[in-house]
C-alpha cells in the first residue's frame, strides 16, 4: 500500500550484485518494447514499474512501453505498433497467451526477439525466452503449508476454502490444480471455491458470503494478496479466527500481516513481480547477443521458471524488501 | 392592459411572426384568429415566455414586460393553456394542476391540501368526477384538457391565454368552458382565446385580432358585429364558402364494412352497422361515449368481441392485417398516435403505404416524394416543403399530414377520428371536399367528430352513440343539430 508512513523502499528489486562477467557494462544501444495489461491491480502495476526501473539502470537501453490495456484487440494493435517501430526486442506480458500468440509470432518472424513474461504463448515459435512464475508450484506450496498445519493440529476431514482470482485465466486454473494435488497427498480436498476478480472489493464480497456458507473453516487459501486486503477485512468484520489463511503473490501488506503474528494470515506463497525486471534484463542481453554469465551457455536459456517460495513469520524479514505495494 | 407591438419571431427558414400587434383590455375575451400556421401559437408562446421575440415590445399594465421564461410569465400573472397538451403523464391530476406551485411548507408537499384545492378547481370546471388522485396518463383526451384548464385556473392569473381549448371538447363541455370564461372576465381577468370554430368566437368573444402569414391584418374588430364572411376573407385572403360539399346523387355501392355485435367491456356493447362504398357514415356522441374505441376495434387496434367483415370477409385481428386489407385510421391524438415528429412530411405521409413505393423492400424515393408533394399540395400543407420535419409545422398542418397518409391510393375504408381538429376554416372546406371526393371515388368512410354540424353536414348516414350503445341510426339529411344533441345528452331516441 502506498500510504504506509515509513514509505517502503521502491518495489523494484533491490540492486543485485553486478553480473560476474561484466554483462552490466554498456553495450550496443537497444530499444526494448514493452506491453502489458492495464495496471489496475497492484501486482501488474509492480510489473510495469519494475520493468521501467530495470530499463533505467542501463544507459544502452531505450525503453518503449505501449499503452497497457485489458482489451485483447487493443493489445494486438499495440504490439503491432511496436513491430512497426522496429524495436530491438519485445517484452510482452499478454492478457492471454493464446490470443496474443499470432502477433508474437509476427514479431519473431520480423526478426524481433520476444521475451514472454508470465502468461505463456502456446507456440514456442512465437517467443525467444519465457520467464515467469510457477503457478502450479504456487498452489503446491500453499497446499503443503495448509496440509502440514492441519496435520499438526490433527484435523480430520477439514473444511478448506479457496478464493481464486479471475476464473478465466489459465494461471488461476494452474494454481487451483497445484493446490488440489498437494492437498491430495495429505488426503484432503477443497470444500468450496469461488472466484473474486483480483480487486479488494470483490475479495471482500466473496469472502463475506463464503464465511456465511461455512460456519467453521479450517484453512483458506486466497490466490492473491491484492484482493486479500478485502478478504481480511471481511474476516475481521465477521470476527472469525478459527482458521489458517494463506495468501498469494507476496505483497508488502501481506508480509506485514504475517509479521504481526496476530493475523489469521500466517503465510503467503510468492509470485514475484520482480520477474519483469529480469525479463527486461534478458531482453537486453538477447538483443545484444550476450548470454547469462553465470551459465556455461553462450545464450540466454529458452525458459526460466521462478520458484514459488513460502513466506511465514519465520522468514518474512528476508522477503520484506521484495514485497510489492498492492 | 396588454400591448404587444411589432413582434417578430424567426425560426430557421420561417418567419413565423413578422410584426404582430395585439391589444388586450382587462375583462375582455380577445379572440385570435388565423389560418393554420398563421402564427397564433407562436405569438402566445412569446407571451408565455416560451419563445423570445427577435423584435418588438410587450407592455403589461403600462410597464415593459419581457417574459424570459415560463416562470417569468407566470410571475407576471399570465397563465396559459397550450395547444398541445402539456401534462405529465406519470403524475396525478392534483400534482399536475399544482406543478411548479405546489402546496408546500419548507419543501414538503401538503398532499391533502393539494387534493382539496384540486377538487375545488375541478368542481368549478364542472368535472367533479375527475379524481385528483387519478393518473393523468390514463385519462381520455377530454379530461386531460380539463386538467390543463384547471392548471391555468389554479394560478391567480390576470391574463389567461387559451390556445384552442375547445378542440378536444364536445359541445356541452364547451358551454361549461364559456361559463368559466365569463366568471373570469367578470372578475376583470383578460382572456386571449384562440379557436378555429367561428361560432364560438361569436358567442364568447368581445374583440377579434386576425393574423395572416405572421402579420396582423385586423386589430380589435368587434366579435359580434363583424360578419363571418369578412373574418374569413381576412384570414384566408379569399372568399371561402363555409359549406359542405353536396352529397353524391349516386346510390352507394356494395357493402364494404360490416360490423356485427361489437362489444368491449366498459367501452361499448352490441354495436352493429355497415358502411357501403361511396358512403360517409358519421358517429355522433358525447366525449367518452366510445366512438374512438369503436374505430380502434374495427381497425383491430383494440380487443373487442364481435365480428368485423371487410368486403364480406372477416378481417384477421391486428392493425397490420387491417392496413393490408385496405383500412386506414387517422387517430385523434396526432402527436401521440400518428406523427413521427422528427421525420419529414414525406416520410410521415408514406408511412402507411411504404410497400406501395418499394420493390423488394427498396424504396423508390422519387415516386415517394412526388406523391407526398402532390398530397401536400392537395391539402394545402404549409409551408409546402415536404422534406421539413413535421415538428416544425403548425398544429393544423400536422393534422393535414396525418390525413394525407391515408389519401395515398389503395384504401377501401377510412376511419377518421376528429379529422378537422385544429384545422382552419379554409382548409376545413377543402378537407370536406377531399373527403367527399374520396367517397365519390368509391371509398367507404367512417367519421367521428365532436362537432355535430360537421357530422351532419358531411355524412350520408349518422349513428348516434350514448354510453357505448347505438341509440339511433338514420339519414343525415333529415336530422338537425338540436335533435342529435337531445339524443346524445338526454338519451331520447328520436
Amino acid at each position, binding site marked *: 500500500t502506498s500510504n504506509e508512513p515509513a514509505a517502503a523502499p521502491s518495489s523494484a528489486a533491490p540492486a543485485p550484485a553486478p553480473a560476474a562477467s561484466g554483462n552490466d557494462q554498456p553495450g550496443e544501444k537497444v530499444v526494448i518494447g514493452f506491453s502489458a495489461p492495464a495496471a489496475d491491480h*497492484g501486482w501488474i502495476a509492480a510489473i510495469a514499474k519494475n520493468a521501467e526501473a530495470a530499463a533505467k539502470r542501463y544507459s544502452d537501453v531505450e525503453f518503449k512501453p505501449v499503452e497497457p490495456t485489458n482489451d485483447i484487440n487493443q493489445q494486438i494493435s499495440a504490439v503491432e505498433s511496436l513491430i512497426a517501430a522496429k524495436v530491438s526486442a519485445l517484452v510482452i506480458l499478454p492478457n492471454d497467451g493464446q490470443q496474443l500468440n499470432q502477433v508474437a509470432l509476427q514479431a519473431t518472424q520480423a526478426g524481433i526477439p520476444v521475451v514472454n513474461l508470465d502468461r505463456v504463448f502456446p507456440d514456442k515459435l512465437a517467443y525467444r525466452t519465457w520467464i515467469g512464475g510457477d503457478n502450479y508450484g504456487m498452489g503446491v506450496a500453499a497446499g503443503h503449508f495448509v496440509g502440514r498445519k492441519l496435520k499438526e493440529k490433527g484435523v480430520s476431514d477439514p473444511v478448506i476454502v479457496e478464493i481464486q482470482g479471475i476464473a478465466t485465466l489459465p494461471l488461476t486454473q494452474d494454481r487451483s490444480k497445484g493446490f488440489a494435488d498437494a492437498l491430495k497427498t495429505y488426503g484432503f480436498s477443497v470444500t468450496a471455491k469461488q472466484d473474486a476478480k483480483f480487486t479488494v472489493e470483490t475479495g471482500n464480497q466473496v469472502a463475506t458470503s463464503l464465511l*456465511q456458507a461455512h460456519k467453521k473453516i479450517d484453512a483458506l487459501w486466497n490466490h492473491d494478496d491484492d484482493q486479500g486486503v478485502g478478504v481480511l477485512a471481511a474476516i475481521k468484520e465477521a470476527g472469525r479466527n478459527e482458521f489458517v489463511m494463506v495468501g498469494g503473490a507476496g505483497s508488502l501488506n501481506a508480509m506485514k500481516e504475517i509479521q504481526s503474528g496476530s493475523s489469521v494470515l500466517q503465510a503467503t506463497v510468492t509470485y514475484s513481480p520482480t520477474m519483469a525486471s529480469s525479463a527486461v534484463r534478458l531482453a537486453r542481453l538477447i538483443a545484444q547477443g550476450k548470454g547469462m554469465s553465470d551459465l556455461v551457455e553462450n545464450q540466454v536459456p529458452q525458459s526460466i521458471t521462478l520458484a514459488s517460495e513460502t513466506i511465514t513469520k519465520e522468514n518474512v524479514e528476508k522477503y520484506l524488501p521484495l514485497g510489492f505495494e498492492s | 392592459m396588454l400591448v404587444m407591438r411589432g413582434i417578430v419571431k424567426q425560426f430557421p427558414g420561417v418567419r413565423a411572426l413578422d410584426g404582430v400587434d395585439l391589444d388586450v383590455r382587462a375583462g375582455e375575451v380577445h379572440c385570435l384568429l388565423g389560418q393554420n400556421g398563421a402564427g397564433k401559437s407562436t405569438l402566445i408562446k412569446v407571451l408565455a415566455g416560451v419563445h423570445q421575440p427577435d423584435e418588438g415590445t410587450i407592455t403589461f399594465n403600462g410597464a415593459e414586460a419581457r417574459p424570459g421564461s*415560463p416562470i417569468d410569465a407566470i410571475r407576471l400573472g399570465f397563465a396559459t393553456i397550450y395547444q398541445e397538451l*402539456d401534462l*405529465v403523464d406519470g403524475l396525478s391530476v392534483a400534482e399536475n394542476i399544482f406543478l411548479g406551485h405546489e402546496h408546500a411548507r419548507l*419543501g414538503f408537499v401538503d398532499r391533502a391540501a393539494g387534493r382539496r384545492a384540486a377538487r375545488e378547481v375541478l368542481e368549478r370546471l364542472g368535472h367533479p368526477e375527475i379524481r385528483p*388522485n387519478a393518473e393523468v396518463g390514463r385519462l381520455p383526451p377530454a379530461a386531460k384538457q380539463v386538467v390543463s384548464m384547471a392548471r391555468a385556473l389554479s394560478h391567480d392569473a390576470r391574463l389567461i391565454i387559451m390556445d384552442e381549448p375547445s378542440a378536444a371538447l364536445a359541445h356541452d363541455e364547451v358551454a361549461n368552458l364559456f361559463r368559466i370564461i365569463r366568471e373570469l372576465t367578470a372578475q376583470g381577468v383578460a382572456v386571449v382565446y384562440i379557436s378555429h370554430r367561428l361560432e364560438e368566437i361569436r358567442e364568447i368573444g368581445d374583440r377579434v385580432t386576425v393574423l395572416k402569414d405572421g402579420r396582423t391584418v385586423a386589430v380589435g374588430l368587434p366579435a359580434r358585429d363583424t360578419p363571418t364572411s369578412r373574418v374569413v376573407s381576412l384570414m384566408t385572403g379569399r372568399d371561402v364558402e363555409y359549406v359542405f360539399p353536396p352529397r353524391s346523387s349516386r346510390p352507394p355501392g356494395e357493402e364494404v364494412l360490416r360490423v356485427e355485435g361489437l362489444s368491449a367491456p366498459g367501452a361499448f356493447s352490441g354495436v352493429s352497422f355497415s358502411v357501403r362504398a361511396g358512403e360517409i357514415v358519421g358517429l355522433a356522441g358525447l366525449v367518452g361515449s366510445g366512438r374512438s374505441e369503436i374505430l380502434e376495434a374495427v381497425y383491430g387496434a383494440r380487443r373487442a368481441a364481435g365480428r368485423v367483415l371487410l368486403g364480406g370477409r372477416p378481417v384477421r385481428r391486428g392493425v397490420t392485417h387491417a392496413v393490408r386489407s385496405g383500412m386506414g385510421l387517422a387517430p385523434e391524438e396526432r402527436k401521440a398516435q400518428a406523427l413521427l415528429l422528427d421525420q419529414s412530411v414525406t416520410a410521415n405521409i408514406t408511412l402507411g403505404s411504404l410497400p406501395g413505393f418499394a420493390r423488394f423492400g427498396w424504396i423508390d424515393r422519387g415516386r415517394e416524394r412526388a406523391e407526398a408533394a402532390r398530397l401536400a399540395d392537395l391539402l394545402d400543407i404549409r409551408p409546402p416543403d415536404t422534406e421539413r420535419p413535421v415538428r416544425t409545422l403548425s398544429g393544423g398542418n400536422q393534422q393535414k399530414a396525418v390525413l394525407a397518409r391515408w389519401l395515398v391510393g389503395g384504401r377501401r375504408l377510412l376511419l377518421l377520428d376528429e379529422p378537422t381538429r385544429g384545422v382552419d376554416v379554409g382548409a376545413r372546406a377543402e378537407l370536406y371536399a377531399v373527403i367527399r371526393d374520396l367517397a365519390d371515388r368509391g371509398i367507404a368512410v367512417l367519421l367521428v367528430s365532436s362537432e355535430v354540424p360537421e357530422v351532419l353536414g358531411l355524412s350520408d348516414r349518422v349513428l348516434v352513440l350514448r354510453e357505448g350503445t347505438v341509440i339511433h341510426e338514420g339519414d343525415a339529411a333529415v336530422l338537425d343539430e338540436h335533435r342529435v344533441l337531445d339524443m346524445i345528452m338526454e338519451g331520447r331516441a328520436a
Partner: protein
Amino acid sequence: MSEPTPPVRQAAGARGAQADAARTNLLSGLRGVGELRHLGLFVALALLVAVGLVTRPDAFATASNLVSVLSLAATIGVITVGATFVIIGGGIDLSVGAVMALASVWATTLATQSYGPVVMAVCAVLVGTGAGLVNGLLIAYGRLVPFIATLAMLVAARGLAQRMSDRKTQLVQQPDNGAIVSLSTTRVLGIPLLVYVFALVVVLGWVVLNRTTFGRRTYAVGGNPEAARLAGIDVRRHTMLLYALSGLCCGIAAILIMARTTTGSSTHGDLYELDAIAAVIIGGTLLTGGRGTIMGSILGLLIFTLITNLFILNGLNTSDQLIAKGLIIVVAVLLQRRNLKERAP
C-alpha cells in the same frame, strides 16, 4: 350549466365501476401501480428465500447471513437511491462506481487521513457531490447527452483515482482513523452501523421523492420536461441538482466501502453503474423517466444480492451463476409483468 350535466357524470360513473373495483386493490393512482409492481418483486424475493431455505437450511436463514446480505447491499444500495432519482428525472448516471472510487481514494490519501475520520468522510462526500455537480453542469447547461457526459466522467474519474493513488490500494490507518472502519465492525442490536446508514439513506430518499416538491418535480422533469418547463419549473437547475444528489450518494457509498474494505482504491465500484441501473429498472422505474419508486429499486437490488449470496452458499461456480442469473432476471421481470395489466396489443 354550473352543475355538471347528469349524463356525463353518469357515464363516468358507469365506467368508473371497474376502476373503483381496481382502486380497492390499489392505494391510489401511481403509487398503486407501484405497489402492484412490487408484488411481483416480493414474489421473486420470496421464491429466492424459499430456495435458500431448502438448499441451505442451516446457513441461509441465520441472522448473521441476513445481516451480511444487507451489509453487502449497503454500498451499492446507497448508490441505487441516487440512481433512482436520476433515472426518474429522465437521465442516467454511468459514473457512479468511478465517482465512488475517486471519493474513496481522495479520502484515504495520507494528507486527508492526517485530519482524522470526520474530515475523511466530509472529503468523500464533497468529492462525490462535486463530481456529480460537474456531470449536472455538463448535462443541464452544456446540453451533453447524459450517457456521454457521465461516461466521460466514468473514464476521467477512474483515471484521476489511479493517478492520485498511484494505482495502489490505500489503507485506512488504524487506530487513528478506525472510526471509519468501525461503521462496518461496530454493531448495534447485532447489525453493523453501515446498514443503518443504508436504511437512513433509503428513508430519506423516499421522503424526498414522495413528500417534497423536489421529488414531485423530479417526476415532472423526467416525465415531460417540456411540460415541466411550461409549468414554471427550472428544468436545468433541477437536472443539475439530480446529478449532484447522485454524486452525494456516491460519496456516502465511498465512506461505506472504505469501512468495509478498510481501503480506498481506484478499482472500487467496478461495473456498479450496470448493477445500479439494473436494480432500478427491475424495480419498475422506466429508463425514459417520469415513473418509478425507491422501494422498487431497493427490492430489485436485494434480489440481485440474494442471488449471489445463494450461489455462494451453494458453492456454484461463476459460469453457472452467470447463466442462472440471466435466467432469474428474466423470470423475475416476467413475474412482475404478470402482475401488471395487459395493454392492448
